[in-house]
């Protein structure tokens, strides 16, 4: 099991501790609040993700063959989801990100509580992360 799979498994186990969706949401929101801040200067048009209903910005830095992601959103639930994505993908190599399977959002049982618009926003975020991985993989 590589690092990406391991972290996903940890997240799923962490969310399994909560019985109902409200507690899961509260946990997700807490994670969003604790996330590393994205400096204001990065919150610009060029870093914004198309296809999200709330504003989402993602930036990436390539150092020691790993990609570090920083991100933010003005909506707190979205921010919680981003914090999970970053936990999984930030600090990984471009190739590992490109090859990764990800199903943890479904497994933590929140997907059915995300509206279709939010779910497609999630796709847009993951696409952006993969796009960065593709650029740095060259």
């Amino acid at each position, binding site marked *: 099991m590589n690092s990406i799979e391991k972290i996903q498994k940890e997240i799923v186990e962490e969310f399994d501790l909560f019985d109902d*969706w*409200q507690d899961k*949401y*509260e946990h997700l*929101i807490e994670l969003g609040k604790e996330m590393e801040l994205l400096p204001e200067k990065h919150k610009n048009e060029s870093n914004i993700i198309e296809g999200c*209903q*709330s504003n989402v910005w993602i930036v990436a830095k390539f150092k020691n063959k790993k990609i570090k992601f920083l991100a933010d959103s*003005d*909506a*707190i*639930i*979205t921010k919680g989801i981003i914090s999970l994505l970053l936990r999984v993908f930030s600090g990984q190599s471009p190739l590992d990100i490109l090859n990764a399977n990800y199903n943890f959002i479904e497994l933590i049982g929140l997907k*059915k*509580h*995300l*509206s279709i618009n*939010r779910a497609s926003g999630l796709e847009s975020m993951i696409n952006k992360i993969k796009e960065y991985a593709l650029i740095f993989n060259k």
Partner: protein
Amino acid sequence: MSISFKKIKNDFPILKQKINGYPLIYFDNAATTQKPNIVIKKINEYYKKQNSNVHRGAHYLSYKATEEIEGSRTEVKKFINAKTNKEIIFTSGATESINLVANCFEKIIKKGEEIIISEMEHHSNIVPWLLLKKNKKIKIRYIRINRKGDLVLKNLRKLINEKTKMIALSHVSNTLGTINNIKKVVQLAKSKNIPVLIDGAQAPGHIEIDVQKLDCDFYCFSGHKMFGPTGIGVLYGKKPWLDKMPPYKGGGEMIKKVTMNEISFAEAPHKFEAGTPNICGAIGLKEAIKYINDIKIKNINKYESELLLYAIKQMSKIKEIQFIGESPQKAPIISFIIKGCHNYDVGQMLDNFGIAVRVGHHCTQPIMESMGINGTIRASFSLYNDKKEVDYFCQKIKKIINILK
């Protein structure tokens, strides 16, 4: 006879379901209303027993279907108090009705002339005119709205001039709920011989529509926002205008005579109804009108006004709520934001509790710009909503604020 609004919920089978384990509370009626059993039954019966093309077939079913669709036209005529059936054109909805008029005006309006709309219009009463602006180099002027969400009508006098060729205005704002003073606008317009088009999408089923009293030249609305099916709508137009306007699309049904090189057109309404119409939609709409008439619009209006006032009162107790649109003349639509919470987060959490609202700009971006906000949360009521649902909604809003903050 007093109406039991308690029992009305039973007429709408969709409302019996649960969402995420919670009873469905449907507060998205400004987007579309649910359908009562009689409308669903009628649609079902039409395809089971009557389906046939109209106006042409030389057989029983075709006669029957023609009778039904023309019967629906009569019902619509009575519903909005038009003078004749010839003034009632079936369209796919309010959006197509407005587009029809805007398209026909391409032949009527000239470069440099002007159209007046307002800052509170839905995009469907903005974009058709902007397209016309692009094609014909005309000017669009906007009636301002004030902080409460009312039109600044003294502004209108300054906007009207000899170049003004149309005033197009919503009857009820889909975002703010404001019921506009159409009679006053029409009075002003008539004194200068300017036609008035009313986007009535949010009005039927909530307030009385009388096009003769309003004296507007065009009135547009959709069936699906008044308990009817989707894909059917109405354009009312005063006969002289319909005679003057060229056809908007070509096809069957709209012609008197076609030779290899020439055509002569049928009279309105058929001139504007090329192709097989939405027969089933029209029949469903007739049934929806019957449903409204049985309860009586004045009873609905009284019930909804009381529910609106109750909701505003209860929501006012939540100090984080800020209302957007506080006109004294309001349809049962409440737009609001919650300080410190993102609209989408609130909408998502409400959905999880089985409460359907809309969040965003509601296709009215100029309002958002004018009010200096990104969007709102919108709860819009219909006759099947009640005070108990409002209480539950407020209770969940409080809970959501606690979770999100």
